[in-house]
């Protein structure tokens, strides 16, 4: 019993490790469980136009911050003959283009590809607000502001509601006198944002401007939208300055926080910035692999993904073999199917993957059938065993070449895949079948040949399944789960399906014997 316990512990350990790794990769690293899982990837292009005065030019442009809820795949900075550097300051990242002397219309580009993840942004501890500065309004405005604030204060219970009510009041369709004074219809977005921030500051509430971009596919000449971020209860809350709605809208990329300028052009004028946005879908798995590689997540960094592509492709095939092995174990231990050669069916299944099912079976039967005919002649030649099997190998190659050439002439391209069949295995199969034929007759050949082919086809159906192929390659941990199953099956002492037939006459006798 003790050994038994140890065995099951081992199985559970192996199984647990496999399942655990799969869950880790799925939930923490974001590996999708299905091959068709796609993620929208946004490509944003910022185009900066200005006309240079002829002297030295420095263009400084704010870049979106790197937060955990977005993954930046690629950033490009394109501008002809400009010196370029990327600066990181406490207020965020900035790109800087510079040139000694330039005149006329200039354009620089910044391109960014990113996708959003499910991870929640944790507010950064260092991101504390500065003490709000009381604004200096002239007397009229000051009175209007104080009146408005009083009204809003009366209607609100806490800071959050206060902020919302303030924004709603400012955007009201039927403006009161105070509002009209503070905010005329022609006021720019920036003016409105700063007005809100100033009004909040009069109440002693810290707030800052947030500029962001609505991500919509196929949009051109977009500009950034202003939001207000208010520091409430130890964290920053985002408010839409036109509606007062709280929270980050969907598909909204925060480009810049704080009052620093978005774009500074020194030595130029009429600077303009416009954004265009394109959305496309990419395989989630590819994105996750790239992201994990760049983050150097240990489990990915030391995985098959770190191999050259060619080796990766080889492993795609190799990692399917355990699936085939499991099928063979099930077929032999549970079903009791007899096959010629234990793992020959797996190799045939691998060949079938290359040739497709029907073509593969036809080719297999043709090669083995023709081989058996020629082999029966060889057995009359009185050859030594090793020489005979070698002769069979050559015969097999000749048959395969003939199939290729003939089918090529006939225009049957599928049959050209005959070369994917393992020649040595086919030769051994022919040799074994031939001996079996001589010793046990054609019936046994049919049973074992049929069993092998059936196992191969079932293994093929599993191994060629897209989902299984995807899972076995991207979750090599599945091998551990597979191993646990094979270990369990290795201890199966019950009857095989074939034995229920083999011993069926016993049941009849025993029943009649009792009655």
């Amino acid at each position, binding site marked *: *019993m003790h*050994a*038994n316990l140890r*065995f099951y512990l081992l199985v559970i350990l192996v199984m647990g490790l496999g399942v655990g790794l799969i869950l880790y990769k799925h939930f923490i690293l974001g590996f999708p469980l299905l091959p068709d899982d796609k993620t929208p990837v946004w490509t944003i292009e910022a185009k900066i136009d200005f006309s240079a005065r002829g002297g030295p030019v420095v263009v400084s442009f704010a870049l979106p911050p790197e937060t955990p809820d977005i993954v930046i795949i690629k950033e490009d900075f394109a501008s002809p003959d400009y010196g370029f550097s990327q600066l990181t300051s406490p207020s965020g990242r900035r790109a800087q283009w510079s040139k000694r002397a330039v005149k006329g219309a200039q354009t620089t580009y910044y391109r960014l590809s990113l996708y959003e993840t499910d991870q929640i942004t944790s507010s950064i501890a260092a991101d504390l607000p500065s003490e709000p500065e009381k604004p200096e309004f002239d007397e009229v405005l000051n009175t209007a502001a104080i009146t408005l604030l009083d009204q809003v204060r009366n209607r609100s219970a806490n800071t959050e509601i206060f902020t919302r009510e303030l924004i709603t009041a400012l955007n009201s369709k039927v403006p009161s006198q105070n509002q009209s004074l503070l905010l005329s219809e022609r006021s720019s977005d920036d003016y409105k944002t700063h007005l809100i921030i100033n009004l909040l500051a009069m109440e002693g509430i810290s707030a800052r401007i947030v500029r962001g971009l609505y991500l919509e596919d196929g949009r051109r000449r977009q500009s950034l939208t202003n939001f207000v971020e208010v520091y409430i209860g130890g964290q920053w809350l985002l408010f839409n300055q036109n509606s007062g709605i709280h929270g980050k809208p969907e598909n909204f990329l925060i480009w810049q926080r704080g009052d620093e300028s978005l774009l500074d052009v020194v030595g130029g004028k009429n600077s303009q910035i416009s954004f265009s946005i394109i959305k496309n879908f990419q395989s989630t798995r590819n994105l996750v692999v790239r992201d994990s590689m760049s983050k150097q997540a240990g489990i990915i960094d030391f995985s098959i993904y770190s191999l050259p592509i060619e080796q990766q492709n080889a492993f795609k095939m190799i990692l399917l073999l355990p699936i085939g092995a499991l099928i063979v174990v099930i077929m032999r*231990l549970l079903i*009791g199917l007899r096959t010629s050669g234990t793992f020959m069916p797996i190799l045939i299944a691998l060949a079938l993957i290359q040739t497709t099912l029907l073509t593969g079976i036809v080719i297999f039967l043709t090669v083995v059938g023709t081989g058996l005919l020629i082999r029966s002649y060889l057995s009359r030649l*009185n050859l*030594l*065993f*090793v020489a005979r099997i070698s002769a069979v190998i050559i015969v097999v190659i000749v048959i395969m070449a003939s199939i290729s050439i003939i089918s090529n002439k006939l225009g049957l391209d599928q049959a050209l895949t005959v070369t994917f069949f393992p020649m040595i295995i086919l030769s051994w199969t022919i040799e074994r079948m031939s*001996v079996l034929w001589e*010793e*046990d*007759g054609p019936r046994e050949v049919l049973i074992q040949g049929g069993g092998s082919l059936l196992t191969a086809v079932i293994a093929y159906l599993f191994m060629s399944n897209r989902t299984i192929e995807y899972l076995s390659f991207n979750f090599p941990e599945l091998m551990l789960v597979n191993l646990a199953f094979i270990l369990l099956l290795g*201890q*199966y*002492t*019950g*009857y*095989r*399906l074939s*034995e*229920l*037939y*083999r*011993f*069926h*006459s*016993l*049941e009849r*006798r*025993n*029943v009649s014997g009792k009655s």
Partner: protein
Amino acid sequence: MFLASPKKLRSFGIIGMNQRNFGLISRYNPRHLYPLVDDKLKTKLLAQQAGITVPKLLGTLHYQHDVKLLKEILHPYDQFVIKPVKGSGGKGILVITQHDHNLYFKPSGDAIQLADIERHVSNILSGLHSLGGKPDSVMIESLIQLDPVFSDYSYEGIPDIRIIVFRGYPIMAMLRLTTHASDGKANLHQGAVGVGIDIGTGGALHAVQFGETVLHHPDTRKTFSELAIPHWDKLLQLAAACYEMTGLGYLGADLVLDRDQGPMIIELNARPGLSIQVANYAGLAPRVAVIEALKAIDPNPQTRVTFSKTQFSAAAKPHTPRLQHTRCDDPR
């Protein structure tokens, strides 16, 4: 129904392949002892040392160039059997019953020439019939003479008696009769008739061919009910003694009755098949359980045979269900 219910089979004590491999072979047969039975020359040598009768060895061939010597070795004999030393399942056995000028005759009457025998020998040496295709040796044995008691039950071949010996105790026996369908070979899946033999008396219990009950021999039409094997005690003792000889706990002993020399052992098998259960209409598990329940193995084969005869005789009362649980079911 073509399928039996696994529950019923289990209640009859039928042992399946998985249980045999796991609970009997790998538990009771240490791997390092396999060569003793897989190599028939070694078995023969062991048996001779133990004073057990075996067919006389006429010659051996080990290398391809020895094939030239074949003619000389065979020259004095009219009847002989050529076997691969490491063959399995009766594969590669060539029986010659008559030699006339240049022609050799098989039991079926087919004539072959020396060149054919040489090719057969060469195939064996190349490993065609051995496990895993390893190079093999050839042994040439004297032909066993059919005992008249079987003459009515045998077609073109010598019947043999398979006795399953578990930890030294014979627990089940079966007589394998050659038929036309089996091409003179005593191989059940080729169409030989398997006759379950009562361990207590040596009398026939029940016969099957291709898994179905038969009441008389398909070729000679003789009914099996009158069949009883002579020298039964001697056969059981020979089989039981193989336990001391090889150390294998689960063993199939193949014996024959020679007209002149009486009972002898021709082959031992470390992985005996399960068809014997069909021929006996009984499962191995209850009998295995009886032996496993024993506190100690009796060192005397004679005593063990006596125990088996009383325990496993068809006349003995059926075993209590309590004993049906074998250690084969237990994990190690």
